[in-house]
């Protein structure tokens, strides 16, 4: 659970209660990550979603009204004959009654809907304890059921449960923190009015109603993406029809199509790469949009992304930007991958290391002049490696990034660490920092290799085409092939080869150089013991000057593309 500091929580409540915060400040707080450790995210979201006005004095009547409304809806739609809210007339309320007003007949009719919802609720965030709780499950079922019945045109669609889940989590979290602060006498200095407001707001008896109200507001934004598609078949099926050519009538597919077009503007090479591989946004983006990225980020990061998304309504613009940022964030991996590899990255999105920097990139796309683009070094993507050793459920057992086993050499250098004594407590943060940098360096090298191989393969392919067509002179082709050869050779050679002679060594030479382990052009990879020595011998060593920055980023990016 996210725990704010003692004095922090009081201060947080005061800020809201005294109406110090205007909507603009609220938005700034959201974007700068202030709610990442806050106890008031649920309040912020309720205000952003217009479930609550900004003026705290109006909260109690507003919230009580919405809870009453929910109670009415619930008793109308949830025909649970055992629910005390239900008609208690024994003539009507018995399983054998065939009266159409009998709660039982409705109960049986709703069976299919209930099953469908339950199937999904049972499969919600299996790694988070809260969602294994029977009461929470039943709460979620009710909310989704009432929503489906009250919105018959949309009903229940798979995925809605994972829109509801983060809302439930946030409400629950804040209730708990409030309760804790209260019992811990942290709120003593608040006056009675203030305490009453907080009490009503966090009343766990209305957990379900409050979740419903929030859920409806979020769904207001998302319904277009849950609507059924009326796909219009083209009059004659075209033999080479692709997913993106299908006549699009659903707003979800339209949206995804537009996102594809924006990618073409923002990052033409990446767009071309994905288009050539025939991977349109429609293929992997359905889940991204319907779940508002819920499976692509671990929950704490997701909630922060939602802070940003919910503070920018209507949300479709910012969602588009997050979507683009996700693609750009892993662009090097994508560019270096084949069809299968790309789909693995897109359908099992690799962990984002620094979600703040990532959000910065999305905000930059949203308003380039107002928000600067984060530095590439901040965005260094460790790809599938996670330092905590935990993997998002969606990442599964995914180790393969390119759908082909990686070459042997990759694992060799990594295993150089010898036995060492365990780290002392105070050494851990520093060592971790260094390790992170090392991982970044390794990852960058791998990326670099992948890119060079990918580019070379494409280039060879181009040349072969030219050869077949006879559209280029043999001499030119030979020269270009030589260049490709050099580029490939440079993967295994000392990369600081300034002299022209070094650029075209004889084949045997090349092999010889390739076998030499020392690569002076890139930062060293330290063994574990060396790292420790570095730690103790050089107190000034700090990872604020990370070795990874010595790898000229532009060398990675500067490789010609086609």
């Amino acid at each position, binding site marked *: 659970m996210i725990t704010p500091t003692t004095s922090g929580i009081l201060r947080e409540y005061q800020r809201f209660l005294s109406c110090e915060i205007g909507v603009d400040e609220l938005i700034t707080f959201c974007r700068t990550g202030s709610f990442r450790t806050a106890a008031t995210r649920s309040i912020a979201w309720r205000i952003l979603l217009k479930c609550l006005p900004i003026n705290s004095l109006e909260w109690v009547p507003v919230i009580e009204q919405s809870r009453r409304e929910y109670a009415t809806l619930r008793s109308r739609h949830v025909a649970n004959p055992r629910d005390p809210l239900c008609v208690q007339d024994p003539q009507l309320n018995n399983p054998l009654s065939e009266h159409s007003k009998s709660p039982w007949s409705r109960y049986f009719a709703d069976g299919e809907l209930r099953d469908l919802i339950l199937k*999904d609720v049972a*499969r919600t965030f299996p790694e988070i304890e809260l969602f294994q709780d029977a009461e929470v499950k039943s709460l979620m079922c009710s909310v989704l059921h009432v929503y489906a019945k009250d919105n018959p045109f949309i009903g229940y669609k*798979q995925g809605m*449960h994972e829109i509801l889940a983060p809302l439930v989590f946030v409400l629950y979290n804040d209730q708990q923190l409030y309760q804790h602060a209260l019992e811990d006498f942290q709120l003593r200095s608040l006056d009675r009015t203030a305490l009453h407001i907080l009490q009503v707001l966090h009343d766990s008896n209305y957990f379900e109603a409050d979740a419903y109200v929030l859920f409806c507001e979020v769904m207001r934004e998302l319904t277009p993406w849950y609507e059924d*598609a009326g*796909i219009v078949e083209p009059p004659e099926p075209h*033999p080479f029809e692709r997913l993106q050519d299908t006549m699009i009538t659903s707003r979800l597919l339209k949206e995804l199509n537009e996102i594809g077009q924006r990618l073409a503007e923002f990052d033409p090479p990446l767009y071309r790469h994905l288009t050539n591989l025939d991977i349109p946004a429609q293929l992997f983006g359905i889940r991204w949009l319907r779940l508002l990225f819920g*499976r692509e980020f671990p929950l704490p990061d997701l909630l922060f992304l939602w802070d940003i998304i919910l503070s920018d309504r209507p949300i479709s613009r910012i969602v588009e930007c997050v979507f683009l940022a996700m693609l750009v964030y892993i662009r090097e991996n994508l560019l270096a991958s084949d069809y299968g590899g790309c789909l693995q990255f897109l*359908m099992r999105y690799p962990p984002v290391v620094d979600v703040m920097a990532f959000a910065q990139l999305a905000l930059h796309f949203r308003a380039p002049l107002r928000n600067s683009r984060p530095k590439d070094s901040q965005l260094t993507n460790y790809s599938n490696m996670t330092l905590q050793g935990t993997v998002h459920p969606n990442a599964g057992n995914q180790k393969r990034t390119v759908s082909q086993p990686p070459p042997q050499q990759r694992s060799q250098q990594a295993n150089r660490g010898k036995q060492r004594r365990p780290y002392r407590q105070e050494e851990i943060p520093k060592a971790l920092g260094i390790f992170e940098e090392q991982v970044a360096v390794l990852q960058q090298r791998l990326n670099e290799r992948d890119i060079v191989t990918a580019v070379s393969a494409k280039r060879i*392919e181009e040349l072969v085409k030219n050869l077949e067509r006879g559209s280029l002179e043999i001499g030119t082709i030979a020269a270009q092939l030589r260049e490709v050869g050099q580029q490939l050779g440079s993967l295994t050679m000392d990369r600081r080869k300034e002299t022209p002679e070094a650029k075209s060594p004889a084949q045997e030479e090349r092999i010889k150089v390739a076998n030499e382990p020392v690569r002076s052009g890139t930062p060293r990879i330290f063994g574990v013991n060396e790292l420790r020595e570095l730690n103790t011998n050089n107190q000034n060593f700090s990872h604020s000057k990370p070795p990874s920055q010595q790898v000229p980023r532009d060398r990675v990016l500067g490789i010609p593309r086609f």
Partner: protein
Amino acid sequence: MARTYDYLFKLLLIGDSGVGKTCVLFRFSDDSFNNSFISTIGIDFKIRTIDLDGKKIKLQIWDTAGQERFRTITTAYYRGAMGIMLVYDITNEKSFENIKNWIRNIEEHASQDVERMIIGNKCDMEDRRVVSRDRGQQLSIEYGTKFMETSAKLNHNIEEAFYTLARDIKGKMERGQGQTVGVGGTTGRYQQDSTIAAQGNNLCKNRHTFHCDFIAF
């Protein structure tokens, strides 16, 4: 660069929500099972390369959400599929009855000679069985498909099911009957892959190899 596969088959898993499609796929691709899977939203995708009679076959397996039937992605998703597994849950009558609807769906959207196979999953739950083996068998005879009962949980018949389906597709191809596979239209180069492989003559085989080496590296 070494050739990574001889054939590429696109397979689909379809069936009602909750019958265990994702679990079946996960068992096959990652050899594991846990009770707390998450429901599929949109499309998911896994790859596994298998050896079959000395040939390397790359299986590209697509998994959809059960509720996605007749919806968003539908038709384009079926195109180019060479094998389809229709999955029901032996403890769920409705999912079995719906197989007929799914088959109708295939007939509308997938290519005619796509290999089909009916799977009755969760056969470890004998005590809760409501669809007998016989009824499953009967249905498959009616539609002229193969049939198997599986358990993703106990890893029963999962490998067999995928291998059988792959072998049937391969056989069809090598007998040269598979020429129209994918002609119903498919996603770009997989179309080419499958038709080229299907034709099976030497020239085309070489082109196929070339194709794999340089594009699908």
